[in-house]
């Protein structure tokens, strides 16, 4: 009952009129719900060309380039993802499909063109690295709101964000996993921009309470009215490894058909959608 109420509240907050943002004071769960809505759910659907640079401590770089399609369920928090790999060569032509559910494990399928094989993949752990980067699956597609306790520690201006000509007025949101085993971090601090509700910076603290991972948004753009982090960086301060991500050719609300996310197109992705 409580869960249902929470979900309804979450949806209400996400889709509530935006006129009053500046004046309103939000509770921590409300900020968290808005953050989730604006960061992981904007638009009905979304297409982007993602370039990732995976940089080792010694400077060696690896490249990942992929097209990502996302479609939100018209009803709840379910989402479907379609990912097509352009680079590097050993994964070129592979496609990856995820059905994401808020209350249970994702369904994931991988298509390997060399064998013409669709393989269902066990996906218990959302903390696995996404394509070998410093981002986990959870960092890419979000985490259930119900898994964390939220509190607002303070409100703060991010000073080094001024270069983008924005104020960078933020809520500092602390998220603590209810089940410590459900996450790699013992808690996470997120600097959430009061205007866009996007995270400008996040710090992940490990089980010893030491900082180990830092997310930073390095470029924000408003595209078709949706604020979007177009450049981001995830840095592992313990290993020195980091990942730089840039979004190109961003389009929202393309009217993606439901059947795009089926075996037919997993095996034979239409170039209209992947180029």
């Amino acid at each position, binding site marked *: 009952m409580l869960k249902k109420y929470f979900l309804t509240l979450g949806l209400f907050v996400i889709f509530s009129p935006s006129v009053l943002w500046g004046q309103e004071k939000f509770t921590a769960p409300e900020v968290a719900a808005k953050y989730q809505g604006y960061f992981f759910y904007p638009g009905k659907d979304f297409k982007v060309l993602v370039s990732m640079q995976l940089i080792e401590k010694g400077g060696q770089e690896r*490249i990942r380039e992929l097209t990502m399609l996302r479609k939100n369920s018209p009803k709840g928090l379910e989402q479907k993802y379609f990912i097509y790999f352009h*680079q590097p*060569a*050993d994964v070129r032509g592979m496609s990856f499909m995820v059905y994401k559910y808020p209350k249970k494990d994702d369904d994931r399928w991988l298509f390997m063109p060399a064998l013409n094989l669709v393989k*269902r993949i066990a996906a*218990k752990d959302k903390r696995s690295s996404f394509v070998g980067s410093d981002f986990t699956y959870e960092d890419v597609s979000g985490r259930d709101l119900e898994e964390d306790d939220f509190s607002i520690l303070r409100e703060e201006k991010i000073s080094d964000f001024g270069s983008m000509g924005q104020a960078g007025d933020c809520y500092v949101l602390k998220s603590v996993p209810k089940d410590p085993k459900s996450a790699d971090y013992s808690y996470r601090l997120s600097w959430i921009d009061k205007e866009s509700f996007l995270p400008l910076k996040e710090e992940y603290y490990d089980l010893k309470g030491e900082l180990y991972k830092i997310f930073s948004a390095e470029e924000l753009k408003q595209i078709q009215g949706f604020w979007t982090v177009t450049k981001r960086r995830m840095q592992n301060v313990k290993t020195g490894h980091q990942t730089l991500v840039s979004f190109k050719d961003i389009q929202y609300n393309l009217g993606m058909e439901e059947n795009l996310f089926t*075996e*037919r197109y997993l095996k034979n992705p239409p170039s209209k959608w992947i180029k």
Partner: protein
Amino acid sequence: MNKKVIFSFFIFLFLFSISFSREIEWHGFVQTNYSFRTTGLVPPLAQGDFLLGDHRFQLKFSGSEKSEFGSFGEAKFFAKTDFFENALKKETGLEIREAYLDYPLKAFDFRIGRQIITWGLGDLLFINDLFPKDWQAFFSGRPMEYLKLGVDGLRISFSSDIFSTELALLPFFESDNYPTSENFFLFDPFLNVSFKQIQKPDSKFENVEEALRLYRTLSNFELSFYLYRGFYRTPSILPDSFPTPSKITYFFPELSVYGFTLQRDLLNGILSLEYGYYDSRQDRRGEDPLIPNSFSKFLIGYQRQGWTDFTYSGQYYGEYMKDYKNYQKSLPPGFPEQDKFRQVLTFRATQLLKYQTLKLSFFGFYSPTDKDYFFIPEVNYRITDNLWVALGGNLFGGEKRTTFLGQLDKNDNLYSILRYEF
């Protein structure tokens, strides 16, 4: 004759494709692949310790053109050709791995040409996947994609919300590339027969192989049904006289298979079930010792993620022979007797390390009924985005030299693959 027809067809396909395509994408790799026997023994008909010495240059071409039909309609062509050098035989050659045209028409997709098709849920155990395989490649440490061979034919797919289908029509029979005494230690009762011939099914209308898959998702279950009508892909042996033949003929008896698969999530993992009934059409009563009996084959598989970047899976596989009494009665004296119910267990574990650039994997087959095994440990490292190296082993063994894996005992080998992709 057939080969020439097919080859001309591919040349035509290629030229046609180039002419209609706006832009061609091309990629490929250069690769060296070696494998040598660690047992220090050499099969009677083979030469030296090396099982494989392969230098290879692969080129892949693809292109597309918008078609006028269908919401995503677009015609595509794809060709994958390998230029190779067999360093053991000092031979070079060209192999067309795949070459096809794709054409979508509303809910239908047509693919014509040489193509790789993979069906079923088994992990290195095949029940409803009756498409040709290269077992020599698999047993001698070639990259996994070389386990599958392309088939020449037409595939028609139909997709809808209610159900989807794939129908493959294969007019040119292609056998498995099974291990032979020329390069493997095997149980070969006719090793000393020098006159051997292979009789493949002719390419005539009634020999066109048909494979049908019907599938849909039903609540959480992914459900597929399969029908196949064609031939065994590993041959049966026909001696001209027995027990001391002067000539033997390899032939491919008729086979039909009816099966299904079921897959769903279970306890944070994936459960797979597969069943197939092998209807041995030329020996339905199991009285012909030259032709395999009918079988029921099944497998149960479970796959799960143990911890971050670690997955493991296991399978239990069984094949149950029909008309076992007739099989026993007709088995020539001195021939090893197969079990009525052969069972195999498999285990796979994969750990990714160093931001998924280093992969440690293990695959093992073990048969509690045949008492034999086959283990494949492998280390794979992505040196850069374009360059990877793999080192691994194929280790066989068993109590008897006549069982499926036990006969391969003396073929233990270590392999290396180095590939630069572009």
